[in-house]
């Protein structure tokens, strides 16, 4: 008697063995009571699992969830805003007003990152390139 079939028994009932392998496995099961018992066990499990009924969600579950999340601003933005608001609130409670400035920086940065300048008349008046009084880069002459 060769070694027991083990997980090849599941592959057998699931139709995942090739014809030769399946025939050989069936021949083994016919001779081996251990493997026959194991085959019976996993076949029973498989049927119970496959016979499990569908599970109904609670009434209105999806409607409530979709409605709740449609109203919500995207998670990332909400987290940043909440964090900024919390630090601002903390700062206003613990420091004099003139020290609030540094904690505003993330808020301003967030705003700048998301704000559009396209419709802003002031922004349109601002020159795109500001001439600098001193050169900021060195021009290296080519050889």
């Amino acid at each position, binding site marked *: 008697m060769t070694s027991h079939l083990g997980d090849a028994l599941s592959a057998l009932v699931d139709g995942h063995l090739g014809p030769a392998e399946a025939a050989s496995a069936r021949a083994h099961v016919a001779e081996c009571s251990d493997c026959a018992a194991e085959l019976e066990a*996993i076949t029973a*499990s*498989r049927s*119970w*699992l*496959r*016979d499990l009924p*569908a599970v109904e*969600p*609670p009434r209105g579950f999806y409607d409530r969830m979709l409605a709740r999340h449609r109203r919500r601003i995207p998670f990332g933005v909400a987290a940043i805003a909440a964090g900024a608001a919390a630090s601002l609130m903390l700062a206003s409670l613990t420091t004099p007003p003139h020290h609030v400035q540094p904690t505003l920086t993330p808020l301003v940065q967030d705003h700048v990152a998301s704000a559009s300048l396209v419709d802003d008349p002031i922004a349109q008046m601002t020159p795109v390139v500001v001439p600098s009084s001193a050169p900021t880069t060195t021009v290296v002459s080519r050889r």
Partner: protein
Amino acid sequence: MPDGHVPTWEEVARDHGRFLYTVAFRLTGNEDDAQDLVQEVLLRVRRGLVTYQPGSMEGWLSRITTNAFLDEVRRRRRRPVVALPGDPDYVVPPGPSAEEALAATTLPADVQAALAALPDDYRAAVVLCDVVGLSYEEIAATLSIPTGTVRSRIHRGRAQLRKALNR
């Protein structure tokens, strides 16, 4: 559903809500976690975090659901509230008493309880195979594990389930 059409979360909820809920419930084993999992799946669909592969919609949803489930399992493992199998202080839960075993039948609730008692990795493989009906190859792709490992987890999962329901 025509091929190439990326489903919206409203479509998923309307057309596959029961299927999605069933898979989530079989994986998590309780209503609260199933609802959280379904919500996470729909948010992943909505945020476009998951690429829609034309083909079986239910296969696609099963992959998202199982991966979201296993992500949550791993997250909880990093901050375990109770000892898990593999931890030094994990105590093997006691099996059913003789009386409980005598009273046991193979009612769906009992099968569900036995399923919930399986290790998460076994349960994921067994649910994808026997509840969803995916092939070993599809399960291997979903879980990013070799087909041989899929076969082994399904077999061990079924064997443990049978043992748990044995009279």
